[in-house]
Structures are given as structure tokens and as C-alpha cells.
């Protein structure tokens, strides 16, 4: 088997050539390490994750006597009237175990595309924001529950010590015990968090204030107030006044039939069902990584990206192999030997494929061992991706080796080509950052297909592997390898 004889010889030469080890293994590891240390933790997070809302909970809740208080009303004068409880239902909103901040967090968790992260302390939050690791953090201060509890549309005439939390812009956060710590250098992220806070506060506070106000309708205090506006109303007997009060209350409820003013929650107010997405939208807080930041998501991108990029640096190694064969005069001996051109090319292709595959597996393994990269749910599927990527890389390398005649040509043309392909493909930066047309263009490179497959396999949040994507990627990579190999076969001049 002359091809294997040549392959073994070339494998021995490659293993003895320190340039190959430096280019194929050391350089990508160093680049991953440097970029990993340089890039922030936000790098590698997908857009959904970037809408993460970080909060600090300092809310002390309501004093027990307030939680256990009686409904804000005089003695009950009636039972239920239709679906409207005449008795004020405020006590049911915040049982002793539930703080207003928990209501607020429930609302945030019910919101799609938002993840809640609880930061353990304001000091930690300030440190994260200062370092740029969070664009903004919402702090629910110790008096948050007490202040929300006092929010009211009605004044002190109807309930003690009320707070009016609204102005022309929405909820005035200072009035309800909410602070947003912002990083001045990440204004967009801060604005998003503030808007999210506003919307959620509105959804929590407004039903509470409506419920509180509606609860007063028909009550003696309300009826007393009406005396000033309805002539002769004060002359009605008490039981008739109570009936009129209940009638007004029922009438208003019927008039706004699409809403339940007594619900005290937004979905109750709008007579909608709450979404069940709390678990999905809750994220455990993990302290920011120190040192290498093993296991950070950025390595899920950096390691496969540079594994793919440097797979194609095989162009240099293979080119140098061919040039050296000519420079040492040994190509003449190979051609004079009783072997075919095909055996010579196969003998060259096999060790390069082996080296490329070893490189691919080694870099991914180093990625796991050094950088804590996850192999995903189906690690075995990495094997066909690595092998098909190697085949594409070897094919391209053989083609370039057929074009270049000197070491300088290999170095210049090879490096230029590899960097160009890496830049086009999105290996050097996340493709999410590329414009749409560039993303489409990236698929002219084998790199992009390999990255597609790795994205499916290595993404820790991927709900399920898309087998079609992985299979298509492997198939296209093999097609690239075959096409490049055929071109090399056609173009290669061994003389």
C-alpha cells in the first residue's frame, strides 16, 4: 500500500515539524485564551439572555399588624352582590407570607423574553454594574411593600397616608421604593431595564389602586361624598342609600364588563389567565467568574469558532509539505517510483486528514478541560462534524498546495485565504452581529456550515438538537471536501 507508506512518512514529518504544532494547536488555544480573558461575560449570550433583568430584593414586607388588618370598610352591610364582593378583599392580596416584591417578581416572571436574576445584595449589584457586567439592576428597597400598600387613587379623606405614585411618565419609582442602578456606559441596556420596570410596576400598582378605589364605591364614605353631588340624596333612608350604593357599584361593574375592577392583579383586571412561564424565566444568580471564567458561554462560541478557523490553517501545513517535497527533490523520487499519481495524492491527503481530525478533537477537548466548555447533550455527534470539517479543510489545503509553488506563496496566499474565509464565515465574530446579507453570504464558506452544526450541538440552552441542521452541515462540508479534492486532482502538477 504505497499510499499508506507515504501517509506514514508524512505523518512522521508533520509530527517532527514544530511549525505545525504551533499553528494548528498552540495558536488557537492562545487566541481563545486571550479573547476569553478580553471579552466580557455578555459575549456569547444570545439576545434572549441579554434581556435579563437583575434585581436586588430588600423589601421587608408589611408589618404583621397591617397584613392581618381588617378590610378597609365599616361593618359589612351585605354579602355578595353578583360577582362583586361587597366586603373589601384587600387582605387576600398580600397574605402574611407574600410581599409586594414577590407580586412584582411574579409579574416579571410572567413576562416573556425576560429572565429574572436575583442579586444577593445592593453592594454586589453596584459592583456588577460598575464593572460593566450588568447594564442596570433594579433594587426593591426595604419599604417597597409598605409604599405599594399605600398607593391609592383616592386621597387621605378615604384612606390613611396615601401615596400617589403616578405622573405623566408612568410610575415615579422614588415614591414606591424602587431604585434602578445604571451603568452610564451601557445606556441602551439601562433604558430597556427601566422600561421593563415601568411596565411591570404599572401592571402591579394600577390594578391594586383600581381595586382599592372600586372597593370604596357604594360604601358609606363614598355615599357620604355623593351627598354633595346628588341633590336630596342625604334624605334617603340608610337602607335605601345602601341599596343605591350597591346598585351603583353593580352598575359600574356591569358597565365595564370586560374588566374586573376587584381583581387587584393585571391579568385579573383584564380577565385573562396568567402565563405559566415563571420557571423558565427565572435564573439562578451565579457570581461573575474569576480568572479564565471556566464554563462561560463565550467559550461555547470561541472554542468551536477557532477550532473551525484553525482547521483551515491546515492549508499552510499541507502547502509546506508539498513545497518541501519539491525543494528536497524527493517529489522526483516519488514520481520515479512504481506508484500512481493518485497514490501520491492519497498518501498526502490521509495524514493531513488525520492531523486535522486530531487537531479538531484536541482543541474541543482542550476547550472542555481548560475552558469548561460543554459538549452538549449528544457529544458523539461532534465526531461527524469534526471529521467532515477536516475533510473540507484537507480538500482546500490540497487545492492550495497545487497552486502554490514556494513556501512564500503558501504563507501569503494560504494565510490570506484562511483569514478571508474566517472573516466571511463568522468564525471570528458571532454571526448574530453580522448584517443579514453577510450571514447569507457566509454560507459560501465551509466554516459557516461547521459553525451551524456546532451551534446545534454545543449550545447549552438549545432545547433540542436539530438533526436536520447537523446532517445538512456535515453533508455540505463533505461536498466542499469532495469538490476541493477534485479541483486539486485536476489542478495538481507534481512536476
Amino acid at each position, binding site marked *: 500500500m504505497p499510499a499508506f507508506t507515504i501517509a506514514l512518512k508524512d505523518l512522521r514529518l508533520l509530527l517532527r*515539524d514544530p511549525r505545525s504544532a504551533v499553528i494548528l494547536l498552540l495558536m488557537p488555544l492562545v487566541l481563545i485564551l486571550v479573547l476569553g480573558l478580553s471579552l466580557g461575560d455578555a459575549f456569547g449570550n444570545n439576545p434572549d439572555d441579554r434581556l435579563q433583568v437583575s434585581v436586588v430584593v430588600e423589601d421587608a414586607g408589611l408589618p404583621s399588624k397591617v397584613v392581618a388588618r381588617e378590610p378597609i370598610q365599616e361593618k359589612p352591610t351585605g354579602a355578595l352582590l353578583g360577582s362583586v364582593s361587597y366586603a373589601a378583599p384587600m387582605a387576600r392580596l398580600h397574605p402574611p407570607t407574600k410581599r409586594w416584591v414577590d407580586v412584582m417578581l411574579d409579574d416579571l416572571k410572567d413576562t416573556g423574553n425576560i429572565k429574572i436574576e436575583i442579586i444577593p445584595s445592593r453592594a454586589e449589584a453596584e459592583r456588577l454594574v460598575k464593572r460593566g457586567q450588568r447594564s442596570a439592576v433594579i433594587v426593591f428597597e426595604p419599604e417597597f411593600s409598605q409604599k405599594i400598600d399605600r398607593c391609592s387613587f383616592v386621597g387621605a379623606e378615604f384612606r390613611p397616608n396615601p401615596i400617589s405614585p403616578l405622573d405623566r411618565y408612568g410610575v415615579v419609582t422614588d415614591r414606591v421604593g424602587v431604585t434602578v442602578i445604571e451603568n452610564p456606559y451601557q445606556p441602551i441596556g439601562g433604558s430597556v431595564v427601566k422600561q421593563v420596570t415601568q411596565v411591570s410596576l404599572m401592571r402591579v400598582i394600577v390594578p391594586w389602586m383600581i381595586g382599592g378605589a372600586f372597593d370604596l364605591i357604594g360604601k358609606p364614605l363614598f355615599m357620604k361624598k355623593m351627598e354633595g353631588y346628588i341633590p336630596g340624596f342625604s334624605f334617603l333612608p340608610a337602607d335605601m342609600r345602601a341599596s343605591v350604593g350597591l346598585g351603583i357599584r353593580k352598575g359600574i361593574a356591569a358597565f365595564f364588563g370586560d374588566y374586573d375592577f376587584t381583581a387587584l392583579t393585571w391579568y385579573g383586571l383584564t380577565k385573562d389567565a396568567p402565563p405559566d412561564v415563571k420557571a423558565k424565566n427565572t435564573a439562578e444568580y451565579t457570581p461573575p467568574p474569576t480568572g479564565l471564567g471556566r464554563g462561560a458561554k463565550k467559550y461555547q462560541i470561541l472554542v468551536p469558532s477557532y477550532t473551525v478557523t484553525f482547521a483551515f490553517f491546515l492549508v499552510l501545513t499541507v502547502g509546506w509539505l508539498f513545497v518541501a517535497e519539491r525543494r528536497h527533490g524527493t517529489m522526483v*523520487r516519488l514520481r*520515479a517510483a512504481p506508484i500512481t499519481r493518485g497514490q501520491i495524492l492519497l498518501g498526502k491527503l490521509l495524514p493531513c486528514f488525520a492531523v486535522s481530525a486530531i487537531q479538531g478533537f484536541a482543541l474541543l477537548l482542550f476547550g472542555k478541560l481548560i475552558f469548561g466548555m460543554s459538549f452538549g447533550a449528544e457529544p458523539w455527534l461532534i465526531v461527524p462534524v469534526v471529521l467532515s470539517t477536516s475533510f473540507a479543510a484537507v480538500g482546500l489545503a490540497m487545492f492550495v498546495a497545487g497552486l502554490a509553488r514556494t513556501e512564500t506563496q503558501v504563507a501569503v496566499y494560504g494565510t490570506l485565504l484562511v483569514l478571508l474565509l474566517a472573516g466571511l464565515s463568522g468564525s471570528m465574530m458571532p454571526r448574530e452581529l453580522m448584517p443579514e446579507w453577510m450571514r447569507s453570504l457566509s454560507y459560501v464558506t465551509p466554516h459557516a456550515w461547521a459553525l451551524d452544526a456546532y451551534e446545534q450541538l454545543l449550545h447549552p440552552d438549545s432545547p433540542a438538537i436539530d438533526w436536520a441542521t447537523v446532517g445538512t452541515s456535515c453533508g455540505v462540508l463533505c461536498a466542499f471536501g469532495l469538490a476541493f479534492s477534485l479541483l486539486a486532482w485536476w489542478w495538481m502538477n507534481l512536476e
Partner: protein
Amino acid sequence: MAESILELTGIRKSYGRTEALAGVSLAVQPGELFGLLGPNGAGKTTLLAILAGLSGPSSGDVKLFGQPFGPAARSARHLVGLATQDLAIYPELTARENLRFFGRLYGLRGANLNARIDEMLETVELKDRADHRAGTFSGGMKRRLNLAVGLVHRPELLLLDEPTTGVDPQSRNHIFERVRALNAAGLTVIYTSHYMEEVQALCPRIGILDHGKMIACDSRETLLSRLDTVLTLTMAQPTDDWLASAKTLPGATSAEWIDGYLRVGSTDAAPLLPKLLAMGAMPTAIEVKAPTLENVFLSLTGRALRD
């Protein structure tokens, strides 16, 4: 006469408009040590490439052991060994690894291959450096290894292209002796070199190639006999009559007076000298210079510089 091991008939080879070989015919007999000479650009490299099966002629026939031979005749490749002018060894491999690799390419395996590797290392006296990388060798050692690589598969015909370029006298002498010994053992050798004295000393039959044509191909003695032996006498200037008489002496082909020397050309100088002395020549010094291959080569190819 034995059947030719190699027979070329009307070989032509063109590269575009350039005709590198213009109808070369040659027959090399088994066991022969044939010298091939030619100035730069004469077509030697092209001819050797055809002999090694690296390229085919544009027209003409090449027969090796009576069978057509060319790039497609791979089964016959093992009959030919090649030691190129440019070293053709892997500097990153040891001497043994180089021999093993090329031996394997030619189908040698196992104990047979190992024995042959040891034999070759012994032959080129590299046994003590067998496991050192060839890149660390001196020029002479690399040349010897290059020769061994060309021989490892036991070829019947060895093509040696400038095998002593850039080596020290010891290695050169060693290569000489090896070539002689191999030839004596029955190996047919085609030897090309720019060193005329090497070819003259080694090769009983020599071909001279120029402008793609074999302008001379004969035994060494016949080629040398193309030029006269020159008898040079240092003496007083003779008269014109005396010079004219000297030219007519039997065996003399020329006689001329040049800057204090009488230079007489002759096919056989020995009987001529007594006759010149008898004519009254009184030389203070006598020099007899037989023709060399270089003289023949220059007389055939001219003294003009070649690219």
C-alpha cells in the same frame, strides 16, 4: 552481442517551440558503465527524465529490457534506480528511515527490507550514522545516502546525475569506488557529470549530447583518438624551412611556432621525437600531452559559453 538493456530510437522532446531533444538514439548494453556528457542546456536532464520514466518523449521509442518504457510503465520502474543531481532525501528523516521509506515504495518488506537497508548503509559507510537525521549530515554523507536510496530496491539500471557535486575528495573517491564496484557486480550505470576526468576515468563508453543531439557516442579510446597528441619542444626559434620540413615528417599532423615553443601535433608522438632530434632540434624541455576527454568535449561542443 547481448540484447540492449536500454534502447532509445529517434527520441524527440519539445516544450512548446523549444526542442530539447532532437532525435537521440542510443543503446546501452547490460553491465555497461556509460558516460553521458553535454554542456548546460544540451538536453541531458530531459534525456534522464525520459530514462527514469518521469516523462515521455514527444516522439521516438524507449525500450527497457526490450519492453516499451515510459511514465505509464509503472511495473518496470523497479528496474531503474535514480541518484539525482539535487539531493532527493528527507532531511527530517534518519538515514535508515529514508532507506526504509523508499524501499517500501518499491515493494520491499520485512526482513528483506531490513537486510537491504543494512547492506546499503554498509555500502555507503553510514552505518554508524544510520539513526541520525539526514539534515545533520555533511554534503558528502548526504550524497552517499542519496546514492544508497537510489540503490535500495536493487535496480538493474542506475542513473547517476552529477553524483559527486559538492562533495569532498574522500566522499568523491568513495562514490567512485562504489560505482566501479557496483558495475563490476553487473549493475548497468549511466553516469552524467560535468567532471570530465570522472567520466574519462570511469566510463569505457561515452556519449556527448549537444543541442538535443548525440553528436558523438563511442568508446573512450575512439573519442580520445579524435584529437592529436601534442608534442611541445622548448627550443630556439627554427627557420621557416626547418618548420616546413618538420610538418612533412611521417606521423606529424601539424607544426607551429608559438612564443618560444615548437608545438607538433601527432597521432603517435613516440616515433616522431627521434626524427625531430635527428633534424637538429635542440630542445631545452620536452612535453608530450595526450588528448583528454575535456579536449574532445570542447572540440566537439565549442568554447562558447552556454546558459
